């Protein structure tokens, strides 16, 4: 039995929540976020290309019932230390929808998963997906005053709704 909240707290700190990220389009957002993970030492130099390639073949936009989100990720080999980078874009960008590539979503909330351990991938993705299935949490993230407020919302939501096995 592991403590999911502790795991989240270990993986994510407030420096990994970005607000007002300016992006021309989906690729620009992915490139900027992935480059930051390389710069901070979480990912290898190969990570940005891996993220962009994956997104082209398997789009990561999700049509949640309220605000739409994107959950880009790449293979574990490109990651050196597991983390998740969250961004709220200054303006929404068009994102292709997973499972239905002709659908275009308007996305402002992006969670980039850089996870190395197989169990962590399943656990953290399931936890955050479960959290994001609550419309009111996505509403709160969109309306949050700043990055710190977003971080607090995420941390609390993982605590309240996170999956415990």
């Amino acid at each position, binding site marked *: 039995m592991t403590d999911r909240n502790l795991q989240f707290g270990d993986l994510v700190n407030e420096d990994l929540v970005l607000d007002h990220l300016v992006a021309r389009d989906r690729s620009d957002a992915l490139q900027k976020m992935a480059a930051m993970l390389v710069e901070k030492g979480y990912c290898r130099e190969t990570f940005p290309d891996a993220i962009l390639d*994956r997104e082209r*073949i*398997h789009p990561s936009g*999700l*049509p*949640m*019932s309220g605000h739409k989100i994107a*959950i880009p*990720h790449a*293979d*574990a080999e490109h990651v050196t230390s597991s983390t998740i980078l969250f961004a709220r874009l200054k303006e929404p960008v068009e994102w292709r*929808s*997973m*499972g*239905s*590539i002709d659908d275009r979503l308007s996305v402002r909330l992006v969670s980039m*998963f850089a996870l190395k351990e*197989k169990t962590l*991938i*399943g656990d953290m*993705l*399931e936890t955050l*997906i479960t959290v994001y*299935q609550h419309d009111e949490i996505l509403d709160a993230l969109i309306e949050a005053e700043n990055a710190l407020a977003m971080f607090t919302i995420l941390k609390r939501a993982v605590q309240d709704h996170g*999956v415990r096995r």
Partner: protein
Amino acid sequence: MAVKKKILVACGTAIATSTVVARKIEEELEKRGISVQLTQCKASEVPSKAEGHDLIVTTTFVSGAGDIPVIQTVSFLTGVGIEADIEKILSYIGGS
């Protein structure tokens, strides 16, 4: 006891979204007292891994599934339409 039905769950990576989908399907079916055998694979592996399964559930487009029914859905990720997809799954695996 009846033999467990086998569901193949596919996504782009075989470890990320398919893990979440497999767990959600397992949870939903457990609530209905149904136990299934779930296997994960990459969408590109479907042609080689499909054989012997009763159903394929995938988040992304797959080909080469042969005669095996395919449900392509992101409901288990978005939370939108889970009930309808569970009904669909039950109609293929013979649950009530």
